Every structure is written in structure tokens, then in C-alpha cells.
């Protein structure tokens, strides 16, 4: 791994900015910085968002697992518990539909000039994230660790090498995309 580069703080901040510029450029070109496109997905009228996400997952899944097998990258799966993921995920979903952007696309929408994203979106997300920081000690002591399952990955869950999961998962996602195209969506 490029551990020397990973520990250079200034270089990393610059790389983060650069990666963000590419990410924002791609999101805008894909239409994902548009409220209409995101809401269209949630109403099953426009499948752009799912097409972008699934293609990103297929390419990224193969690439990152290759890098890992070559010793050039390590995985960072997130910790999870039923109390955090189920409740947080559903709250997020309600916000996703109400705001019509997510934390990444809201930044892109701001760049695009959408003021509802700037004032409502960024302002609201900052307020919500701060509210979570305030509630955190109480939530941590009660609900966040309920049904903790740690940072387990699907290959670990199935007790197999990741390469038994990556090709079928990639094939399944490509099949799903083909199905969407076939259905004319």
C-alpha cells in the first residue's frame, strides 16, 4: 500500500479536493444533482439514480477487491447494528424524499445553483447532524448498539473468500441493469 502517501496530510487534503471535483462533475453530468431526477427515482418514474449507483458498485466492487488482493488497498466496512442502521436508515429515507437530495448530491446541487439545496439542504443537514451530536450520548447508551453485528462483510457472513461473492454479485447487478433496460425504464 502507498502508506507514505496516505500519511501526507497536505497531499491528502488536495487529493480529497480533486476527488471531490471529479465526483461532483460526474454527479452533475449524470443528472443526480437535480431534485427532479432523485424524486423521479423514488417515484419509480426515472431510474437514472439506480443506474448510476449500480454501475458504480459493479466497477468499484471488482476494482477495490482486485486492489485488495494485490495488497494495494484495505477495506473499511462500516460498523452496523439493527438499532443504528434500521432506524437511522429509515430516518434518512424520509429525509431523502422530503429534501430531494442526499449529502453528496446536495453539495453538487449547490454548485449547480439550486438555492433550495443551499439553504434548505445544507442548512438542514448541518442542523440535523448537530442534533445527532447533541443526542449522541443518550442514543449511544440506549439504542445505537441494539443488535450489534459489527463491521462484518457478506463474504465473512457466508464464511467464504470474497472472490466467491464478487463475480456473482457483479453478474446479478448487471443482470438487474439489463432487466431495467429490457423493461424500457
Amino acid at each position, binding site marked *: 500500500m*502507498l502508506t507514505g*502517501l496516505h500519511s501526507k496530510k497536505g497531499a491528502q*487534503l488536495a*487529493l*480529497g*479536493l*480533486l*476527488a471531490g471535483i471529479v*465526483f*461532483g*462533475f*460526474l*454527479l452533475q*453530468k*449524470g443528472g443526480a444533482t437535480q*431534485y427532479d431526477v432523485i424524486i423521479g427515482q*423514488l417515484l419509480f418514474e426515472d431510474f437514472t439514480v439506480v443506474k*448510476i449507483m449500480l*454501475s*458504480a*458498485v459493479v*466497477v*468499484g466492487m471488482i476494482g477495490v477487491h482486485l*486492489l485488495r488482493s494485490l495488497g494495494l*488497498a484495505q477495506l473499511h*466496512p*462500516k460498523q*452496523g447494528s439493527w438499532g443504528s*442502521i434500521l432506524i*437511522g*436508515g*429509515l430516518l*434518512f*429515507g424520509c*429525509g*431523502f424524499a*422530503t*429534501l430531494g437530495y*442526499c449529502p*453528496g448530491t446536495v*453539495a453538487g446541487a449547490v*454548485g*449547480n*445553483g*439550486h438555492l*433550495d*439545496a443551499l*439553504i434548505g*439542504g*445544507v442548512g*438542514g*443537514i448541518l442542523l*440535523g*447532524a448537530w442534533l*445527532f*451530536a447533541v443526542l449522541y450520548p443518550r*442514543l449511544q447508551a440506549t439504542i445505537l448498539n441494539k443488535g450489534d*453485528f459489527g463491521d*462484518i*462483510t457478506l463474504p465473512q457472513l457466508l464464511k467464504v473468500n470474497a472472490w466467491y461473492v464478487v463475480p456473482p454479485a457483479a453478474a446479478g447487478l448487471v443482470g438487474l441493469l439489463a432487466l431495467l433496460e429490457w423493461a424500457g425504464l
Partner: protein
Amino acid sequence: MEWLEMSRWSPYLVGAGIGLLSCLTFLLSDKPLGCSTAFARSSGMIERIFRGRKASLRPYFQKFAPVVDWEWTLVVGVIIGAAISAKLSGSLAATWVPDKWADTFGPAAAPRLAVAVLGGILMGLGSRWAGGCTSGHGISGTLQLAASSWLAVACFFAGGVAVAMLIFHVLGG
């Protein structure tokens, strides 16, 4: 360079590009793409303006310090990158109300802003509760085959579809 001026690219091309970008960030920065932590850090920076060092003592800000990090500059980059793309295709313009919203609920800015703030609060709270957002869980987590992220993305869309249907087909219908 006509392709840079196109207003839309194929979603498959855009997705593949984001997948390749993910590989690069793992390789060069040892980091998955993610956006919501930056908002938590920023909220801590803002609280610090009002309350000084006391804000940093919150247990959550001990875990996610209110400082500029890789992910924070990433989010700033997203704003810049989207602005460049929009400028090149001629779609960079200040708007208050999205078309789809205006078609259903009218062109007034105040109702849209009020609903957007409410949505933002839910999203900020939910993303930190679940420990990630559509990029951190939805793309980076699922591509690592993390169990938490596959569950999270199912919940994001379940909640999102239900509320979008409620807003547009029940309240707006």
C-alpha cells in the same frame, strides 16, 4: 471537447466513472467516498464559533473532531466539480424551486424551503444515526460488500419511496 459541454452523460458511464474514482481513493488515500461526516464536523465547527472549546468536548465531536479532513475537502470539491460541469453545459443558474415541485405545489419559494429544511434535518440526523449516506453506505459500503451498508441502502430506499409517494401521490395528488 464537445462531450464536456453535453448536459447529460449516460448513467452507466457516470456510474463506471464513480466506481473507478472509488478505486483511486482507496489506492491513493485509503479512503472510501463519503459525504455525511463532513456535515457533522462542520456543525461542530459552527458550534465552536458560538461556544468555543466547550463544543469540542461533546463525545460525538471527540469521535469526529470539528476539523477539515480529506472528506471535508471532498465535499467542497463536489460543489466545485458540479459547478464546472453545469457551467460547461450552460445549465449553471440560480433557482429556488425545482420544476417537479413547482408542477405539484406551485412556484412559491417559501413552502419548498420550509420542506427542504425539514428534509435536511431528517437527513442529517438519519445519516449520522446510520453512520453514512448514499455515498458512504450506498456506493462505498455496498461495493465493499459490507452487511451494514446493504441493509442501510435498503432502508434509505424503503423510507424514501414511501415518503415520496406520500408527498406526491397523497398530499400532492
